[in-house]
């Protein structure tokens, strides 16, 4: 339940700009899903909000204050999990809990960690395994469990269900929604990067689409309590179907525009005859 506001946010690694002119205000308790082409800057935006990359003091505020470093207030699930390889998967959750709940004893911490692991469909016998001995999806779920466990008011999730099968993913989507909804008036604010339009439609109160580098927000959509899709309406409600097509089209256009730009550039550079792969495709 922290609000996040970006005011003409700009960021680059070195000289190369990744984000430029990003304006957005998320109210406390919003569930914001980020869509956008691979490499457009979604992870970068989450890293900025998390305080892992330095932003300009006037351009990014969380909970009314400038972000000047990471904190327990902002839980994060990294795209590449970020589990500590020298701890068992279970200890990876426990150490996070210990930071938040300093007065808990070992037993209690472990109980709660186990409960979180179970909530994410992870067996107790995986708890004592080292990350290197887990499957991709298991690692991802442990990383998610760790982020959930610290119960931060702002949750930043970078494609947290990307490595999961359809069924497990659906179950976890429900878990996230439940977790968020159970907050009632004190709902967490969530930024959730996904590459699945359906996932965004199912989870988000607000959907953002990021454009080409240097990226800005090229499309936003907000749901009201009434218009928010559910698993039941996702593939039936014409409004939702329409929105899905629109979102897909926007990303598609953006990609093709970029391919075109690259092609023209190349043509100008060396009059190459090769046709870009992305231009050969007329329709998906």
């Amino acid at each position, binding site marked *: 339940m922290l609000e996040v506001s970006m005011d003409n946010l700009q960021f680059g690694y070195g000289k190369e700009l990744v984000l430029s002119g990003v304006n957005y205000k998320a109210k406390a308790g919003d569930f914001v899903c980020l869509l956008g082409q691979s490499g457009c800057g979604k992870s970068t935006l989450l890293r900025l909000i*998390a305080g*892992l990359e330095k932003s300009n003091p006037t351009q990014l505020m969380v909970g009314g204050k400038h972000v000047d*470093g*990471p*904190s*327990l207030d*902002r*839980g*994060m699930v*990294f795209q*590449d999990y*970020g589990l*500590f*390889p*020298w*701890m068992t998967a279970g200890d990876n959750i426990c*150490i*996070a809990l210990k*930071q938040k709940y300093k007065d808990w004893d070992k037993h209690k911490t472990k109980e709660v960690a186990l409960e979180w692991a179970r909530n994410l469909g992870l067996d107790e016998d995986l708890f004592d395994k*080292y990350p*290197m001995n887990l499957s991709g999806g298991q690692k991802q779920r442990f990383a998610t469990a760790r982020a959930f466990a*610290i119960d931060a008011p702002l949750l930043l999730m970078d494609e947290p269900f990307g490595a999961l099968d359809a069924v497990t993913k659906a179950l976890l989507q429900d878990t996230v929604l439940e977790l968020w909804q159970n907050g009632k008036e004190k709902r967490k604010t969530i930024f959730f990067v996904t590459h699945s339009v359906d996932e965004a439609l199912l989870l988000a109160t607000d959907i953002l689409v990021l454009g080409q580098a240097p990226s800005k927000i090229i499309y936003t959509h907000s749901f009201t309590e009434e218009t928010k899709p559910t698993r039941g309406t996702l593939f039936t409600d014409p409004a939702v179907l329409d929105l899905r097509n629109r979102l897909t089209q926007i990303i598609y256009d953006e990609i093709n525009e970029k391919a075109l730009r690259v092609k023209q550039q190349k043509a100008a550079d060396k009059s190459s005859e090769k046709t870009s792969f992305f231009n050969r495709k007329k329709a998906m």
Partner: protein
Amino acid sequence: MVKFVKDYSGVIAIGTCLLIGYILLTDVFGVLSTFLFPSIFKVIKLFPQYIGQLLTGLISSLFLLVTAYVLAAISAITLGTMIGLKSGLRKNVTPYIYAFSAVPVPLLTPYAINLFPTFQAASIFLIWLAAFWVILGTTIGAVMSIDKRYLETASILEMPEAERLFKIVLPAASPSILVGCSIALTLSFMMLAVAEMFGAKSGMAYFVQYYSDFAKFDVVMLGFLFTSAVLVLIMYIFDTIKHRILHWTINN
């Protein structure tokens, strides 16, 4: 016993080859100077006679070694972690670390004797110094190159400094630090040769140096063999501990 032989068959084979090679080079063909490289049989026969002296030497050497090494490990890892984590500090102190480490420890004996109240303290200082540079260097290198994702995760969890150090920084850096520690251990053995040249009445390097001065190279060889056996044993223990700490990196 059968299992032992099987597990260590390669080790035993190499040992046998080395032994035969030495015997061929000395007793059989006399290629090597018989003065410096005595017959191994002669050396082995000396063992009962010198075992007492060797054991006394072992004890006094171990006292120097353990004290110096433990102090070196603690001080170097502490300092190295601090320097490795703070890139500003690192930039400023690195030239001085290099400058001080350039001073050859064997030439520092007069200074050590002058500055320390007892000869034993001076000896410990010299061993400490050599081990310190090695562990400091590896620790700084190891801490510097910790994958930043781990530090990021730690900072998101707002870990207190101490916990961050012991739960994140040191484990992440431990593979390299432990390589440094094992080299430092070997080097400490080497430094015995410097540290036991003054004020000592016994010691493994003292033993070797003593009989070397009198050209009793058979006894010297015995001293070398004994020292080697001790180091192999210590390293075996060290490796076991290291293996336990690093089980999470084991690939095969």
